[in-house]
């Protein structure tokens, strides 16, 4: 048997395969198709203090090897999340990570404080391209990123993961600032800001004009950023962006990711997470790699 456990801060995962926020609902949507007990962790859909309606449709469209989304963080709000969604997730033997989004530092702090006791880790979404204010406004500004993480860090004891935006000039800077401000780990990448136009109607394909690009198309960008970020920090990086298969996941591990998240692939193949786990184990067995730590950051260059 190969050893695939990894640690993200004080969070111990039985394997490095996580679901990417917003692509696995609250877990229950997949429970008929996927044995949730097998997952390293589940990151729930982004949550805000109040329930949010999200953006008007159309919210998604397909692009070459990818898709755009502008869901706009439709979510049930923290109360319903804690009361209705968490108890279901808690029945499974997997770690639960809450992905949170606020408009102000105070909102992030309040969210973190309320979740600190009930989830296993908190992922700060400072990179959502699909909401006005909050989100990416933080994630594109180094000083705001710093202040936000610092404030949340003081308020919460659980493992704190900062999810970075790829829509910046220098991902390394944001990685370093996140580490210095008290983040225990980094998640990257969130979606890349993008746009598509229907030439017949002359209208944007998304109601919100711009949306976030995800899927295999962005994988080479994500691998690059994971590599750049993981080289300049000592905290673990959770890599994501277009992971469809075990081979893709291994690419991220070699680039320096300690764990990986499967996002858009869940839509295309609901069993993608399981196949990635099995595929990583198989690859290790064939290659006689006993411990996944021998893959992490194993790029030769």
């Amino acid at each position, binding site marked *: 048997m190969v050893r695939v456990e990894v640690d993200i801060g004080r969070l111990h995962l039985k394997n490095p395969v996580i679901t990417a926020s*917003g*692509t*696995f*609902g609250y877990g229950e*949507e*997949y429970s*008929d*198709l996927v044995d949730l007990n097998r997952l390293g962790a589940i990151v729930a*859909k982004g949550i805000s203090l109040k329930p949010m*309606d*999200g953006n*008007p*449709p*159309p*919210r*998604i*469209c*397909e692009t*070459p*090897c*990818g*898709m755009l*989304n502008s*869901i706009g963080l*439709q979510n049930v709000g923290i109360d319903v999340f804690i009361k209705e969604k968490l108890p279901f997730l808690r029945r499974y033997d997997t770690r639960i990570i809450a992905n949170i989004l606020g408009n102000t530092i105070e909102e992030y702090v309040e969210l973190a404080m309320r979740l600190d006791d009930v989830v296993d880790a908190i992922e700060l979404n400072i990179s959502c391209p699909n909401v006005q204010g909050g989100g990416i406004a933080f994630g594109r500004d180094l000083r705001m990123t710093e202040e936000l993480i610092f404030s949340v860090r003081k308020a919460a004891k659980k493992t704190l993961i900062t999810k970075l935006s790829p829509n910046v000039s220098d991902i390394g800077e944001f990685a370093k600032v996140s580490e210095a401000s008290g983040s225990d780990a980094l998640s990257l990448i969130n979606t890349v800001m993008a746009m598509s136009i229907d030439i017949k109607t002359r209208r944007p394909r998304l109601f919100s004009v711009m949306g976030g690009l995800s*899927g*295999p198309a962005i994988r080479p960008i994500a691998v690059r950023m994971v590599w750049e970020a993981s080289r300049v920090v000592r905290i673990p990086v959770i890599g994501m962006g277009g992971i*469809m298969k075990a081979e893709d996941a291994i690419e991220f591990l070699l680039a320096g990711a300690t764990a990986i998240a499967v996002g*858009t692939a*869940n*839509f*295309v*193949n*609901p*069993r993608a997470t399981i196949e990635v786990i099995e595929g990583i184990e198989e690859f290790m067995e064939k290659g006689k790699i006993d411990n996944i730590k021998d893959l992490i950051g194993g790029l030769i260059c």
Partner: protein
Amino acid sequence: MNERLFKARVLENTPASPGYMLISLECLEDIKRPIPGQFFMIRLCSGNDPLLRRAFSLHAWIGKNRFQILYRIKGIGTKILSEIQKGQTIDVLGPLGNGFPKRKAERHVLVAGGIGIAPLIGLAETMDEKDKLSFFMGFRTKTEAICLDRVNKMAASVSVATEDGSLGQKGTVIDILNKNLNNIKSTIIYACGPRNMLKRVSDVALRHAIDAYLSMEEYMACGLGSCLGCVIRTTQGYKRVCKEGPIFDHREIVW
């Protein structure tokens, strides 16, 4: 929830009329018999482009683990589907969504616009009281008119409209619906077609104060309720077409 991810063998994939195809599938494992109005998400390539699955309603259940989908070749995904050969296997997720409700009524009115006929055939076939069934169908032109034979065999009355008048009445399906919907006590409408048509069906239903169930469409990624991509506006906020739908009470929809 009883959706499954399964492989299905293509028993047949043949043109139904120019631009329309009928595919018959045999699931390679047991699936629950779908309710009319439910749908399947089909994966079109093992690669990454086109990336997303495509949604298709159940057209007809043709015996244990066998069913049909009727589809219009629209873009790249349906083009690929149309080229799949008999004997090949495809990757299917479903059945998904709520399906049409089973209701008793004096008269069941089925209203189809174009390819909207697809799920209504399956619905009609599972209805007990075929003598209470009226079919209203609209097409652009005669050559696109599909399923006429089957509808004629099933329904007590059939009305057809074409935009160019090449078959039946000249006009839209709403025109013939308006003309013929007089005797409306205890009537229920079931409709599928373009959004604009569905809105006008809803107007008709509102005017006559009768029930109407509409099969709605929206762009989908997951089909499982997780991506929140497929929402439509309803009186109770956004609802997911793939989960709370695709069949909606017309009164719920905010057009």
